[in-house]
């Protein structure tokens, strides 16, 4: 193997790749332009949804209002998120239809003589109709339930004091919950799931077009044969091309991380709910080191698999369809970071892509476990090496290289 020839091939392929518009779109435009837009869009969406829910009050229909005690009605009407409307009992079915249609959010029906039953301390029940498939309906009903249980507490307190028993006998103790998570860890749990997924997919996307172009593209243009009969050996050709693909994948992923960092730090409106958590995400030195250690072998693995698939394909188009299928194979394990309850352990460390996804999730939350990073580094590097060996073997095979 001749190092200077590898560098000649690497340098030429790098220039060729950097002049390719498709590659540049994925490598530069998506990280630098699309990701900040995505972040701004996402926060804007969250904000508009939250304020939208507030602006639009849920409508609750009361049937049998005349039997509801004044105190209970006052508690129901106190809630600012809901409006109360009363209809006569005969229109109950009509109201249930409206509930199913989503024009109202809950129907509360008070049985006849409900107020009398309370006074006489006889048992009774209130029926609430909800559409559990609708978030707004569920929220409205929980507001109704809160108001009614508060009313129930008042009734109980009144009955107890009638019997000369103090009211605080009902609350023997209180439970207070304090969140010890740092804002960064909160952001890690909220966005940590999404960021690794994005970064891994960007790493793959960045490597995708160079890989297709440098093998299947050369076949299609008829330049591969001239390269094969030049003094460059198969190993030198594969290595030169492989390294360009690794660089493309890595640069795309790192640019995406940088862009995410800048977007989260400067573009998110600090008054947005949850923004303080988000803005506490900082890509400090240790998380950048973790990202490099994780993404370098991952880019190596992607490059090896992609160039193998690409040299097998007869044409640019055929390679594209293989790579689209491959894309799904990468998306699924990358998606693992979004699943709750999947933790870094020795089993997940052995699965490429999955391990990277989990490491990046923890890095966002600032809880890196270095032994896991090391294990994943070894596993992914080994896989990248195997993929490269496989690619070299295919470049040596006449039936693959001349498969046209």
């Amino acid at each position, binding site marked *: 193997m001749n190092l200077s020839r590898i560098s000649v091939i690497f340098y*030429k392929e790098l220039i060729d790749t950097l002049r390719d518009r498709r590659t540049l779109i994925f490598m530069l435009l998506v990280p630098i332009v699309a990701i900040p837009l995505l972040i701004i869009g996402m926060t804007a969406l969250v904000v508009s949804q939250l304020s939208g829910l507030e602006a639009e009050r849920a409508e609750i229909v009361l049937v049998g209002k005349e039997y509801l005690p004044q105190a209970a009605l006052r508690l129901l009407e106190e809630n600012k998120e809901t409006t109360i409307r009363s209809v006569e009992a005969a229109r109950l079915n009509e109201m249930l239809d409206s509930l199913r249609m989503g024009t109202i959010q809950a129907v509360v029906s008070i049985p006849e003589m409900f107020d009398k039953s309370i006074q006489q301390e006889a048992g009774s029940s209130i029926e609430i109709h909800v559409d559990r498939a609708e978030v707004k309906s569920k929220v409205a009903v929980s507001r109704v339930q809160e108001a009614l249980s508060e009313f129930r507490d008042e009734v109980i307190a009144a009955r107890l004091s009638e019997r000369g028993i103090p009211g605080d006998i009902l609350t023997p103790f209180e439970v207070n919950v304090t969140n010890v998570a740092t804002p960064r860890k909160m952001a890690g749990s909220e966005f940590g799931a999404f960021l690794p997924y994005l970064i891994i997919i960007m790493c793959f996307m960045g490597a995708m077009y160079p890989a297709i172009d440098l093998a299947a593209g050369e076949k299609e243009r008829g330049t591969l044969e001239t390269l094969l009969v030049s003094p460059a050996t198969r190993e030198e050709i594969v290595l030169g091309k492989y390294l360009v693909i690794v660089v493309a994948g890595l640069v795309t992923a790192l640019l995406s991380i940088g862009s995410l960092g800048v977007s989260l730090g400067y573009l998110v409106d600090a008054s947005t709910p949850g923004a303080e958590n988000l803005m506490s995400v900082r890509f400090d030195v240790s998380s950048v080191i973790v990202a490099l250690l994780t993404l370098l072998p991952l880019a190596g693995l992607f490059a090896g698999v992609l160039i193998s698939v690409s040299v097998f394909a007869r044409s640019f188009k055929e390679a594209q369809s293989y790579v689209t299928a491959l894309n799904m194979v990468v998306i699924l394990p990358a998606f693992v970071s979004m699943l709750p309850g999947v933790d870094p352990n020795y089993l997940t460390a052995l699965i490429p892509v999955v391990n990277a996804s989990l490491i990046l999730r923890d890095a966002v939350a600032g809880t890196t476990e270095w032994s896991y990073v090391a294990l994943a580094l070894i596993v992914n590097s080994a896989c990248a090496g195997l993929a490269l060996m496989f690619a070299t073997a295919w470049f040596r095979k006449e039936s693959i290289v001349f498969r046209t």
Partner: protein
Amino acid sequence: MIRTQGLTKIFHDNRGNEIRAVDDISFSSEPGLVYGLLGPNGAGKTTTLRILSTALRPTSGTALVNGVDVTTDPQKVRMQIGFLSWTTGLYGRLSPREMVTYFGRLYGMTKDQIDRRIDEIFDMLDMKQFAGTRNDNLSTGMKQKASIARSVVHDPPVMIFDEPTTGLDVMSSRTIVKFIRHCADQGKTVIFSTHTMSEAVRLCDQIGIIHRGRLYAEGTPNDLLNKTGMNNLEDAFVKIVGE
């Protein structure tokens, strides 16, 4: 000098059947002469030339290219040959100068050597005007010249042309034919393949008639006509392959 001895290449199709693309071919060609492999499509011309250029390894038999064995020292053979095929394309995002420089570097030439060689070739082929234009923006004729320049950057003693004129217009075709003649006049060993009889007659000092992977006859165009008693090569060809 090219010398093949019992050259055979067997492929297997999807069902595992044997296909003898090249079957026991032996011939030789001397420096300063143009040797033409003449035969219809699928005769085994491309496979033969790919073996000579070390892109494929022969199943059996061997070939010496400028005295170097393609089976034992393919790396050294590659330094001796220039290769041009009708399917050869260009790197569209590079200019002719960049592309030729790239191949010069692969052949281990220094920057000075490459620059001098490029001056020489681009002058000869009248390419100076478009040396810095990206290949994608060149006309067919210009592309053809860029391909030629690439194939001779290292001034190889042996030139291999696989159906170089297929699909070209008259002008580009003339450029190639002139260039092939020029190579032979410079004392290079030239082998080229074609399925066009007139081209073979015009260009070749020696012709090998190849059909279904076998070499049926060999000689100068006149030899072949005399041997068969025909007055044109097409009839001679049909008579030789016996169909």
